[in-house]
Structure formats: C-alpha cells, structure tokens
C-alpha cells in the first residue's frame, strides 16, 4: 500500500510544470523514505533529479518499494483538475498498475478521484557522484529566470563565469552580444533576495540556453536558486521545494572541440 497526502496540491502541479518541458515520461520511485525521480531528457544532455522526503508530506505510507512509470502529459491533465487549495492524496496498491489521485476541496464538500494507468519504463539511471563544487552561487530564482530569457534572445549558448567579483552571464550571436553581471550583495533583509557567492576557484563554462530556460520553469517552486559549478563537470541548478525536498537539474557543458 502506498499513500501520500499533500495539503498543498499546488506543489505537485508546479513540480510537473518544472519537469514536463524536459521529460515526456518518468518513473516515480516510492519508498519508505519518500519519492524520488531521476531521468535524462531525450538528448541525454540534461538530467532531472527530484527528491521529496516522506516527512514533508502531511501523511505518508509506503509498505513496499514501488516504481510508478508515469506519462507526464497524462498526469498534467489530472493535476489540472485539482483546485489550488485542494488537498491531494496519491494512492496505489503494491504491484498495482494504476495510481489514484484524490482531490478534496478545503471544506470537504467536493471529493474527486482520478485513476491513471502506469507504464513500465525502461530508463537508464545515472550514478551521480558527490562533488565539492568550486563555485556555489545563490541568486533569486526570478532574477535567474529573467537572465536566461533575456540572453537566449542573442545566442544559442551562454557562458557562466564566476570570479571573486561576482558572476557573469554572457552570450554572443548574429545581432550582437550581451553581458549580465551580478555582484555579491551584503545588506539584504531577506536571505532569498540576496546574491551569495562561495568560490574556491574561478570557473567559466558554456551552456545551451535551451536547457537553462527549461530549468527556470521551476521558478514558482522556490524564491531562490542555487547554481553549482566546477571546471569540466555538469552544472547543477537546484530549487528547494519548501520543507518537502528539492529538484535538481544537471546540464552537461559545451566544450571547445579538441583539434585533431
């Protein structure tokens, strides 16, 4: 028996919005510790890693580990049927081939349930090693989203470079070039409005804007985003999801072709 209850069903809506750009289908791995999802996009350039802790739910029960292969388009349809203030419960039997979503309106006058068929997905799982990153940058998520959107008008890819002075996003294309510099902020009331840079050594990497723009679909989940970079490894873009968990995106860099 699997059951997970979330008072704020809107969180799950936002999570779906944040991943369905990159993934068509994915396997939700449910265990006693919570729900995990890991999947690469079709082109194997980026990866989504979602982690929802069991104690972040208002009620959580998972007797046996369960892999739920889900078509995200279908799940989005179901989540659209939920009101923003509805309480949501996901339910499945052990070894079931369907999952049920129950939505209850706040004063319980309306209860709806939707049953969805599960799929058997054969997806490759990647082992992601623990890494100490040379640069860890925290910026307001709306700011990051704006920068990605603005810069992608100029070029297909952007360079993110981090140094003592701050972090710089730059791009160049047919019409010209663009640069956005962010400096570390010191006197801010709220932590999520701050720009915080922890740097061991400077890093400069090149990334495809297309994927960054897809990542920023997670902006509604969190006021702050964290970027982790080291030379020649994938970028990590992390959004915290309240007390429930986090969503992380990994993106492989673009490199200068070694001349052969």
């Amino acid at each position, binding site marked *: 028996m699997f059951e997970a209850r979330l008072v704020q069903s809107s969180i799950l809506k936002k999570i779906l919005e944040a991943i369905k750009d990159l993934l068509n289908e994915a396997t939700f791995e449910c265990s006693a510790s919570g729900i995990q999802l890991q999947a*690469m996009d*079709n*082109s*194997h*350039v*980026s*990866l989504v890693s979602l982690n929802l802790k069991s104690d972040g739910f208002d009620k959580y029960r998972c007797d046996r580990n369960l*892999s739920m*292969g889900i078509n995200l388009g279908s799940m989005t349809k179901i989540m659209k049927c939920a009101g923003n203030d509805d309480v949501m419960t996901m339910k499945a*039997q*052990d*070894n*079931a*081939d*369907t999952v049920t979503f129950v939505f209850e309106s706040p004063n319980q006058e309306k209860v709806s349930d939707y*049953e969805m*068929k*599960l*799929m*058997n997905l*054969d997806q*490759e*799982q*990647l*082992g*992601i*090693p623990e890494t100490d990153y040379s640069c860890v940058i925290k910026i307001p998520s709306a700011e990051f989203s704006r920068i990605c959107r603005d810069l992608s008008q100029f070029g297909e*890819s952007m360079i993110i470079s981090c140094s003592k002075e701050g972090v710089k996003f730059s791009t160049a294309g047919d019409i010209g070039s663009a640069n956005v510099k962010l400096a570390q902020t010191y006197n801010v009331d709220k932590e999520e409005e701050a720009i915080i840079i922890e740097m061991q050594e400077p890093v400069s990497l*090149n990334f*495809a804007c297309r994927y960054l723009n897809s990542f920023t679909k997670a902006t509604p989940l969190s006021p702050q985003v964290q970027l982790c970079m080291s030379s020649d*490894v*994938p970028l990590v873009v992390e959004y915290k999801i309240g007390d429930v968990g986090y969503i992380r995106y*990994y*993106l*492989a*860099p*673009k*490199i*200068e*072709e070694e001349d*052969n």
Partner: protein
Amino acid sequence: MGIHGLSKLIADESPSAIKQSDMKSYFGRKIAIDASMSLYQFLIAVRSEGHQLTSVDGETTSHLMGTFYRTIRLIENGIKPVYVFDGKPPEMKSGELEKRAERREEAQKNLTQAEETGNLVEVDKFSRRLVKVNKKHVDECKELLNLMGIPFIEAPCEAEAQCAAMVKAGIVYGTATEDMDSLTFGSPVVIRHLTFSETRRIPVQEYNFNKVLNGLELTQDEVIVFKNIIGKCFIDLCILLGCDYCDSIKGIGPKRAFELIKQYRSITKILENIDTSKYTVPENWLYEKAKQLFVEPEIQDPKTIELKWCEPDEEGLVKFLCGDRQFNEERVRSGSKKLSKARTGTTQVRLDSFFKILPSQTNNNKRKQKDITNSIGTLILVD
C-alpha cells in the same frame, strides 16, 4: 545477406532489446559505418527516374551522391562517422558468393527479357537486383571521404567483424549497418536505418546485444565466466537461422531453431538429438568452422586504430564531384562549409559521458511490456 530471420525473432522474443529513436539522439557519438552496406544502399536507392545517377561518360555516381550528402547529414547531427570497408571475403563465404552470382545472372536474364517486352516495372526491379558494389565504387568513395576529412578503415576481412571489435574496444559507440550478423560478431550496439534517406522517415533502430541475449533467455548462467559460452550459444542460433558461411538444416525455421537452441544449447547437441530422417542436415556441415569465424574473425587490433576527423578540402571536393561527375558546384561548396562549420565552435557534451549509467535493476514485479498501452486498467492485487 546477414542472418536469416534474426531481426524478426528478436522483435518477437526480445522486444525490449530494440530501441527506436531518431538520428538526433546520437549526437556526440562516434559510429562505425559498414561501408559496403551503405554503398550498396546508395546504389540501389539514390536514383533519378529509376536510373542511377551518372557522370558524363555514363559512370555511376549514386554512391558518391549518397556518401556525400548522407555523411553531411550525420555530421550536422553531431555524429562522428567512421567508414569501415570490407577486405577480402573469408573462404567460407565463397558458397554464398557463388549463390549471389547465380542470382545476379538470373536477374540479368530477366532484365534482358523485360527490356525486350518493354515492361518498365520489371526493368526497374531487375536492374536493382543487379546492383553490385565494385572496386571502383569503393576506391572513389575512399577518395571522397579523404577529401571530406572523414576517417575510414579497411578491415582485413569482414567489415562487420571489424566494426564489432571497435565497439567492444570502446573506440566507437555502435555499428551502423542493416546486416544482422554484426550481432553475431557480438557488437554490443547495432544501429539500423541510420543512413536511410530523411524523406523516408524511418526511425533509427538500436539493438542492444546484451538485452538481446537476456530477452532470448540465452543467459541462464548469470556468471560472467560463462558469458563466452552464452555468446556462442547465440552464434549457434544464428548459424541455424542461416548465415553467409554455411548451409543450415533444411526444415528448421526460425521458431524451431530458437526452441532447439533453448533446449539443447548447441548445434552439436541438437545434431545428437534430432530426427535426421525428418530434417536434412547438410553433408560435411562446416558449422564449427563457421562458428569459429564469428568467434575469432580476422580483424585489425582496434588499439592500433586512430580516428581523425579533418578539415574538408573544398576545392578538392569541387574538382572531384563537379565537372564530369555533374554535381552542382554550389551545393558541393555549401556541403563542404557544413562539414567545416561542424568542426568549429563548441560541441555539446552528453551527460552520460560524465555520469556512469547504473546497471538496470531487474524487477520481477514489473508490469508486462505489452500492458503499457493496452491495459484495461484492472487492478492486480498480489499478496
């Protein structure tokens, strides 16, 4: 050509071993292309009003047209192709080659007949059957690849065997061919339809060798030491299905062959057990020798192979393709620029080149593959 009925057997018995995708998903991959196979395809498929493309003197240029434009398409999609040409055919193949020559003679006769009666459909059909890749085609193609800056390798013997060895050694990702015996040579990844025309919209098919073995349940012994034996079991299956090197037992079709192999695990055992009055086993059947060719084919050690993708020679290409060979100069130049452009600038790296793919967990509780789309949504309660 290849292994008779193997692709159908895999599709029926081990569907999860076949993955459909498109060319784009192979970006950043180095891929060994079975050159004889692709030249043959081009000679058959690249035509204008049913005739092969020719130079002013009537020399065929279909293979050059195909090689030039399809290679550019691969490069534009971020794929790094390396062409592998056949060397001398193994002696065991002479029987098969004789048969092919006979069939060609037959086709020639039919063609002459069709031409006399003026049956255009038949003429087209038989002229396609007459297509043969000759040394001139191969040499011209190599010259073209040189000008394009695309590497090629001459295998000492069979190209598929060389490709398989290169995939096993990890210097390329997969073998691109239509010929299923690449799997028999043990190529971990075999890609079909990669060099097909874009307009045909045929999805690229990828065969994963290990999944083929798993799906066919030829890996009952999970111990790696036995892997070799299991591979040989698969080779025996391929020989029974019918390969290029020797005859197979008459009266045994793909289904029966698969059952027999599952039961007895080797041809030797099968021969001890089947009713020879019902099935005619070829006299002096050289299946052991054929098997040897698959297990230890003559190849160049992949470690000695160095692959280099170089800058194309635009003027050289124009000189080679335009003029007598009647290629459009503008298109050749723009093709060369595309090759050159793909070399400059930055390349997107694949994420799986940083993070290792974990071995997939086999979950016995998993829902059946077929149920994905057609399941009626009934709840199955276990326990």
